């Protein structure tokens, strides 16, 4: 009996020892990141490629853009990620951080309307910014509302209560979505406004991109706003949104790229807004966003961070990584600005 116990203890300590040895052998660079769930699918596709290219291990946690900014501010991670540009207060708090646009995608509006039949010749369900604003303000409450019918002439839309689903917590996708709604609806702008989290007048909350997607998938009558990749991966159908030119467009790579092409110059600080682009871009998707990686200007992993982000900005934009997730390649003018900003990241 005693012998058995001691041999068990010996085995346990041997196991611990081997853990220590294995740990000591670990020589690859580990980069911890946290933030946006919007960009998480892309990071998860990049991770194995970065592992084989540089022997880097990327550990990324999708905690939401707001929590990501908090994490890099507290320096508990090597990089943060946010779809919302940092405010000047956040920059001050972060104490020597830069934000670099490193990916670009559309925020889709998936819906769950059982029994919806579109008119012959219409391939996608149509919504406008004004209607979406009214749904989220609680003034349009049923899918058979005349305002929705007017956008989808000839469609059979069931009488079904609308459940608008929003993100709880501080979310960059919420920022992007409310940025769009504020730009198309003056009522939204004055009553609710834009931000990483706002006071929602109607609807149900869910946590993270996965959370809202899950609620829409399981709730007849629900709609949400989420990175297109999540809608695709979960087989949800999403609406085509009316842009400033009056066209109904999907968040396809081409349409998101058309919206991004309206960026002619990048301001210092790299804050970019491409929601509701002007009429001159007739195919532009109106709810697209650049998503940012937030790096400290001084880091013990500076070299690895620079290499990783440079890779993401160049090879990482290749179709084999981005196409299936509906991420669009970032335009050249932004790429140049990003690479320039990247040079500010120095070793400690």
């Amino acid at each position: 009996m005693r012998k058995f116990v001691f041999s068990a203890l010996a085995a346990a300590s041997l196991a611990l020892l081997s853990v220590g040895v294995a740990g000591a052998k670990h020589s690859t660079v580990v980069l911890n990141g946290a933030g946006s769930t919007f960009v998480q699918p892309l990071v998860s596709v990049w991770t194995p490629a970065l592992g084989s290219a540089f022997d880097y291990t990327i550990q990324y946690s999708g905690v939401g853009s707001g929590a990501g900014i908090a994490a890099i501010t507290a320096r508990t991670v090597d990089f943060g990620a946010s779809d919302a540009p940092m405010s000047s207060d956040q920059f001050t708090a972060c104490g020597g951080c830069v934000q670099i646009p490193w990916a670009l995608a559309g925020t889709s509006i998936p819906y769950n309307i059982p029994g919806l039949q579109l008119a012959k010749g219409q391939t996608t369900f149509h919504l406008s910014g004004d209607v979406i604003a009214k749904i989220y303000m609680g003034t349009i409450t049923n899918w058979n509302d005349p305002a929705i019918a007017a956008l989808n002439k000839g469609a059979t839309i069931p009488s079904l209560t609308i459940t608008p689903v929003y993100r709880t917590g501080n979310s960059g996708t919420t920022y992007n979505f409310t940025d769009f709604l504020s730009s198309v609806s003056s009522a939204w702008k004055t009553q609710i406004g834009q931000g990483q989290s706002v006071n929602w007048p109607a609807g149900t909350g869910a946590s993270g991109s996965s959370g809202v997607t899950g609620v829409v998938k399981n709730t007849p009558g629900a709609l949400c706003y989420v990175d297109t990749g999540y809608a695709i991966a979960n087989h949800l159908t999403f609406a085509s949104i009316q842009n400033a030119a009056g066209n109904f467009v999907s968040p396809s790579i081409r349409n998101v790229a058309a919206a991004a092409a309206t960026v002619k110059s990048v301001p210092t600080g790299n804050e970019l807004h491409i929601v509701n682009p002007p009429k001159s871009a007739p195919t532009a998707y109106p709810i697209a966003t650049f998503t940012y990686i937030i790096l400290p200007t001084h880091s013990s992993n500076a070299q690895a961070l620079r290499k990783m982000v440079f890779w993401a900005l160049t090879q990482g934009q290749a179709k084999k990584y981005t196409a299936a997730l509906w991420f669009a390649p970032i335009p050249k003018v932004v790429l140049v600005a990003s690479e320039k900003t990247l040079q500010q990241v120095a070793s400690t």
Partner: protein
Amino acid sequence: MSAPPISLKATGRSRRRLFADRAAVGGAILAALIAVGMLAILVGSVLARAFHSLTWDFFTKGPAVFGQTGGGIAPALVGTLLLVLIAAAMAVPVGVLIAIFVSEFANRKVSAQIRLWLDVLNGFPSIVIGIFVFALIVKTKFLGIGHHQSVYAGSFALAIIMLPLVSRTTMEVLSLVPRELREASYALGVSKWRTVLSVVLPTSIGGIVTGTTLAVARAAGETAPLLFTCSIAGQLINWDPSISVASIPVTIFTYSESPDTALNGQAWAAAFVLIAFVLLTSMFARIMLERSRRKLGRV
């Protein structure tokens, strides 16, 4: 002429007592059945939902890249193993030393105080322990480790949870060690510390292992302390304790929120693995305790 037969049938007050007795026994049996039934339903329903996901890949592979199917929880299995092993390495020596101090060296007043504080620690909300460890060694640098999430931080939080369990169980067994054994040792001129080391501890080793096992089972299932200390994870198996790893409870937490039904299935499967682990370790602990009791009874 014979006396009328005495009826053995209860009447009046005794009849009422009989009913009360039967009702009480029946209620107790029912309550026991509910407890056992709950466990059976719990294990059964988890297994039913987990069954489809319990494949070879589930145990050997890392999570699938976003949008792809398949994948497994191998990094989480390794992560939880690492977390509880290191947590046990931290908690067991300290816990056993506390128990030895309380039951062998401390006076009654001090030992009562320590017991009380251990019980308070045992009932402490685990999320608070998580935040405490976050503030102590994740947010700030501490003894050269930290400033980011790591296995060390997660294990430290789990060790705080394990500590009262280990030391309370150890105290129990130490108090079971017969006085005569110690006296025999003293009679031979053996010093006190030597008695503790060579007589008391070896006699109660079974109980100490039991406490450790139960504490490990408890720690393996804790989620809240890990959320702040060890929840950023990559997609590969990692053995390096200086960085953060995936773990079974955190995996269950994130997968259960996923819109992907395959991941929901994996969450159930991970839950089943955790339950199986807890059941097996508890059974092992029970057997160990039984053995050490029998041995102490023989003395």
